[in-house]
């Protein structure tokens, strides 16, 4: 259980000296309580107090880096079980699997696709992260060749999947210096693999069915000198993965079993339902997802889901403020004021486009707050509306001076009229009612 702000405060010097960068000790305590500050920031704490308070903030899931260079990925270092509790930080790496039995061209084309395909959404470049090479040829040199074909780790992060120590030796001889993930150490082979990955300093996946077995195996490997581990719970079904992954994440977060504090591994091709497995892995705690090559629709949907799930729920996605023409509006089209909370925008857009009513969406910068909160929090104000009207040159677009404001902004109507000189019409509270409202009420 995290400490409450006042409990932490009791241990602070209460001098309000501001050296921590916060205006008061209590403000610092509040940040500590939600994990948004480091104990170290206060120079006036004795070591005991530091460790008392510091224990609260160490990440419960280890950060593991796979690959090297620009495309390398870091997974783990998560703090919560549900994204609404704070946020998820490190999106899972999606690794497309190739086999060393495949023709070279086929491997090459998969690798090219991974390397080149970028999906751009809301200002972010979304990519499939790397390649997993599976040892099926029974010929270590062939495995090594395929690893080389996959870039040898220098361009894309790799997962080396095998069971034969000789294959790993060969594969790591090629890619060992680029931190590929080695999959997988089991109860039978862990000693050799741990030694090998220790030698190369690369991360190791450990595989065992069930949290207890995983914990013991992970504990042994960590002890043997491979601190960067990934856990493969060897699920027998997708539902099984979700249940086990949840259990593992829960004990990691609750710090009941430190040996489970590692990112998880999921083979999405294992159940014959790749899309479902990808979605499940993204939603439920996978750090590395290995998947068969994806069709473009699946890839785009999966990457979008991953982006959605890994956005900070406390930081609403914002739409750029401005004036947006919808359905080819003319000079008599209504001006509809709204906020730059993306969800509000998309919802409105949906209803308005469907209604075919020409209009302008006039988006004020409320820092991503919804209408309700923006009004309550004083972010949506008459001054903002007046300034934005000017800034976006709204008056030049239309030949009327009527502004439709959201129902929840009704309390501001008078002030907006005063500040802008425009006549204000109070629209409905609900976006769904807007088309109907416009049909009935709008006369420029």
């Amino acid at each position: 259980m995290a400490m409450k702000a006042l409990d932490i405060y009791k241990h602070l010097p209460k001098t309000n000296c501001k050296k921590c960068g916060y205006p008061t000790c209590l403000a610092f305590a509040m940040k500590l309580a939600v994990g948004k500050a480091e104990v170290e920031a206060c120079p006036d704490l004795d070591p005991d107090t530091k460790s008392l308070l510091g224990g609260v903030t160490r990440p419960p899931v280890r950060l593991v880096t796979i690959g090297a260079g620009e495309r390398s990925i870091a997974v783990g270092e998560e703090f919560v079980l549900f994204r609404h509790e704070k946020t998820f930080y490190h999106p899972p790496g999606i690794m497309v699997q190739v086999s060393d039995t495949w023709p070279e061209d086929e491997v090459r084309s998969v690798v090219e696709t991974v390397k080149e395909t970028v999906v751009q959404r809301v200002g972010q470049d979304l990519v499939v992260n790397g390649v997993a090479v599976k040892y099926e040829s029974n010929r270590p040199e062939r495995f090594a060749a395929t690893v080389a074909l996959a870039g040898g780790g220098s361009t894309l992060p790799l997962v080396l999947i095998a069971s034969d120590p000789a294959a790993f030796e060969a594969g790591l001889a090629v890619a060992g210096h680029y931190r590929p993930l080695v999959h997988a150490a089991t109860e039978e082979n862990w000693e050799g693999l741990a030694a090998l990955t220790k030698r190369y300093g690369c991360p190791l996946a450990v595989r065992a069915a069930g949290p207890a077995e995983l914990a013991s195996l992970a504990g042994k490997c960590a002890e043997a000198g491979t601190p960067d581990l990934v856990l493969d719970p060897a699920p027998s079904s997708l539902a099984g993965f979700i249940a086990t992954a949840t259990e593992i994440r829960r004990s990691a977060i609750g710090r009941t079993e430190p040996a489970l504090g590692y990112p998880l591994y999921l083979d999405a091709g294992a159940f014959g339902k790749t899309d479902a497995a990808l979605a499940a892995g993204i939603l439920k705690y996978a750090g590395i997802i290995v998947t068969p090559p994806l069709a473009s629709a699946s890839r785009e949907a999966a990457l979008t889901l991953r982006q959605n799930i890994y956005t900070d729920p406390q930081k609403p996605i914002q739409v750029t403020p401005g004036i947006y023409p919808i359905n080819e509006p003319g000079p008599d089209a209504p001006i509809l004021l709204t906020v730059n909370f993306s969800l509000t925008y998309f919802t409105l857009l949906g209803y308005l486009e469907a209604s075919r009513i020409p209009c302008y969406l006039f988006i004020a910068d409320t820092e991503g707050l919804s209408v309700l909160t923006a009004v309550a929090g004083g972010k949506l104000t008459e001054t903002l509306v007046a300034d934005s009207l000017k800034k976006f040159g709204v008056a030049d677009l239309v030949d009327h001076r009527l502004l439709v404001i959201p129902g929840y902004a009704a309390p501001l109507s008078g002030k907006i009229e005063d500040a802008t000189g425009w006549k204000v019409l109070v629209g409905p509270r609900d976006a769904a009612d807007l088309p109907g409202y416009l049909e009935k009420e709008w006369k420029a």
Partner: protein
Amino acid sequence: MTEQSDEGLTIREVRLGATREEGGTREVSYVIGGERDLPFSGDGAGRPLVALEICDDPRFWPPVVRDYVGDLANDTAEWARAAERTYGADLVRLNFTSTKQRGFDAFDAIAATTEEVLAATARPLIVEGSNEPELDSEVFRRCGEAGEGERLLLGTAEADRYRSVAAAALAYGHAVIAQSPIDVNLAKQLNILLRETGVPQDRIVIDPYAGALGYGFEYSYSVMERIRLAALSGDADLAMPMICAPTDTLSVREVREAAPADQEAMAVAWEFYTAYAAIVAGASIVCVRHPLTVERLKAALEG
């Protein structure tokens, strides 16, 4: 009053549809709810249901679906029949898109269509009435009456307009979809309002409102998780099964602007990922519009 208990709660079971023994004409009825743990993590829950959405006025329906179903779109009853028999949907969700026309007053048609669709199907039916407060009470009365005894799932009650749906549900024995805009508190408030109007708790299904994947879906996802967590930890006013019906999924840019050859795949992928994620978050019913998505989802949920 909110029942609080330390052991946590079981999600209330809600029966949809009525067999002959139960006073209706359905071949099966479904019981949703009953979970005692997070999805996939415990026992108690049945497989989530996949509903195929159809409508009575295809002008308001996504082109990618119209193209796929062809003439069926013009025959609501046949479309419904195909949904169950051909596409394998667990149930049908009938949307009265006709009420979106200006000056709608064909209330008789509402009743007739409800009856026809019931006749064409053997499984429980979800009916989505009007979207227009002015029409609400008549639309709900007519379809509620037409489905009397069949334990329809009637949508949609919202905080500003719940009384007419509630009245129809109470008068004709249906269950109600309670929709609130992506907020755990608002969901709870609406359930309280319905309860205080007399709708029994085991006839409420929560619709936390689903945004489209890539367009705010994550809010819906988290709200569903929050609702379920609150319920499991003892909040009786949130301990109802959830339905996820992302109405905008097929009109997002990715689907609309996909190359013609990819459009269908994109539509299905978009619906699939959304619906599957909703199930992971705790939805008992997921609604989709493309028949191929039904198949994909059912395959994913087997085993």
